[in-house]
């Protein structure tokens, strides 16, 4: 029990690591709670990347990692040019949200709280634990903590191919960091990352959206995203696996690009760091990042100018983070790039109807597909006219195509694989659709 508390307490270091970056005046408009969450996300990305670079260099992990990561955050802060201000609203404007506008905010907060508490209750009651925690996330983190590095001998051991050695390192690194602090890997505490990251996503998302919209609209859109992810997560058993991490980085990264933060270098670099977190959390995070950056550069020309600079700010953290991981795999001869589920660019189109129907069945099993259907219905009913809606919807479409093509690569009947994975892999799609409803009709402030 004590190890579990220590393991969870070690997460408090993450906002401290990211604080030098988020302490920049450009981010002051986000509010203290949102900035703490964003600092935690940046801290997680930098700590994980530093752990990977440490392993690549052949150094054992130790407390100096925290200082080194915070040093990187400080250096990144220095990269933000003067007068890079995302033009966020004055936090004092909150006070103007009084009277009738308070009611929808409170309703949204209560619904968000119910979803987070339901996720917490489901996790504590052992309803939503992912088998993948026991199969590979936990064993790898446990072994890396014990070895004080990314353990090449363990990853190359015979009969352990099922560990997916090439999976990007953020989740195992963060789990291992906590396990070093706690003295062992606490399996039960690891499942609590689901409600914890859902709450962090809620706090971060509401704060980011508030930079671009009145409090009721920001709170309502945030509630829809969190309630959809809460039900999808409970029903598809994501506690202890990488989905909560992936969604935290994906949703906050895209949300940043929907707000005035996207117009400044500071905001783009922050979004770039969150996209790097998504790419380092799961394999499908990388195509997600590419889709986000390409669509942002194409759709929001005024915010994206100059294009090369914007692309660099958005992509450089991912290139460094994933580059270090792929370099580690190649230099240790453990893996060479990401492994597909078949021959690349060879798709079994004869499986298409089986894949589509299996995806439909898998989504139906998650709360009668409500986490997917409700955001779509809300979006259709609100009929958004803002051009920015094409960013989350375009990314959702690109990710859906990527996932279907991945399932079509399987040489064998993919229906069993889809039955236990599709509800999780498609959860970013529903979150993006829910987020798109935020780009709906403008309301008077």
């Amino acid at each position, binding site marked *: 029990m004590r190890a579990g508390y220590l393991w969870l307490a070690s997460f408090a270091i993450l906002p401290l690591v990211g604080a030098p970056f988020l302490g920049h005046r450009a981010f002051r408009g986000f509010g203290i709670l949102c900035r703490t969450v964003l600092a935690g996300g940046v801290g997680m990305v930098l700590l994980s990347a530093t752990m990977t670079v440490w392993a690549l260099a052949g150094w054992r992990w130790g407390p100096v990692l925290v200082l080194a990561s915070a040093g990187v955050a400080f250096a990144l802060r220095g990269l933000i040019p003067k007068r890079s201000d995302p033009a966020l609203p004055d936090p004092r404007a909150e006070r103007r949200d009084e009277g009738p506008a308070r009611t929808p905010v409170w309703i949204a907060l209560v619904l968000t709280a119910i979803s987070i508490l339901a996720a917490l209750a489901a996790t504590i009651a052992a309803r939503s634990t992912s088998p993948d925690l026991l199969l590979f996330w936990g064993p790898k983190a446990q072994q890396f903590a014990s070895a004080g590095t990314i353990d090449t001998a363990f990853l190359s051991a015979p009969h352990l191919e099922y560990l997916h050695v090439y999976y990007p390192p953020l989740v195992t690194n963060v789990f291992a960091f906590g396990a070093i602090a706690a003295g062992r890997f606490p399996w039960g505490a690891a499942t609590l990352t689901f409600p914890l990251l859902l709450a962090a996503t809620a706090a971060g998302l509401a704060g980011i959206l508030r930079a671009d919209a009145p409090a*009721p609209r920001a709170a309502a859109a945030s509630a829809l995203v969190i309630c959809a992810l809460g039900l999808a997560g409970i029903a598809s058993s994501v506690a202890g696996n990488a989905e909560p991490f992936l969604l935290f980085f994906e949703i906050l990264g895209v949300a940043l690009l929907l707000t005035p933060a996207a117009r400044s270098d500071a905001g783009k670099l922050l979004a770039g760091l969150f996209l790097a977190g998504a790419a380092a959390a799961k394999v499908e995070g990388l195509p997600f990042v590419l889709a986000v950056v390409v669509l942002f550069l194409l759709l929001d020309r005024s915010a994206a100018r100059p294009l090369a600079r914007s692309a660099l700010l958005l992509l450089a953290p991912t290139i460094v983070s994933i580059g270090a991981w792929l370099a580690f795999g190649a230099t240790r001869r453990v893996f060479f790039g990401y492994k597909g589920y078949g021959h690349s660019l060879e798709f079994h189109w004869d499986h298409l109807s089986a894949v589509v129907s299996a995806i439909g069945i898998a989504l139906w099993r998650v709360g009668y597909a409500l986490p997917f259907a409700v955001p779509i219905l809300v979006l259709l009913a609100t009929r958004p006219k803002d051009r920015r809606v094409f960013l989350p919807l375009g990314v959702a479409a690109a990710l859906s195509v990527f996932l279907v093509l991945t399932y079509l690569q399987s040489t064998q009947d993919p229906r069993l694989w889809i039955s236990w994975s599709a509800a999780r892999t498609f959860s970013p799609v529903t979150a993006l659709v829910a987020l798109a409803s935020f780009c709906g009709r403008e309301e008077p402030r």
Partner: protein
Amino acid sequence: MRKPLLLSLAGSAILAGFSVAALPFSRGLFRVPRTPYDANEASFLAPAWILLQRAAEIVPRDVSVVVRGEPPDATNDSYLHRFAVALLPGRKIVPAAVWNVASAPETLREADYEVVVGGKALAPPGSRLVLSIPEGSVWKRER
């Protein structure tokens, strides 16, 4: 209240309601689970979890261990090997089966300990019982 706002809140209310409904009330929501998989679709993992957690207390580090199910089943044993890698860290885990193919019997006899999940296990030859619980048993090979 404007329509988009109302729709978002109504949608959120439906989803939050179903989240609460998805909780395992019938199992006793406030009863402390014995394993992280008790109320889960993967609840079949629970007996192996309990036995391997108990085995971790008595099987020393740096010894070799084979974990198998009773009655023998190569698919089940393949998964038990993976669970043992997770829950018996620091031990050399000898697979009773890999990718649904059973290992050769002589490979299993090399292990210092044998963990048998489920059923009434016959004593492995040359072994003595060191733990027996409803979820299975742990045997130490006498050399």
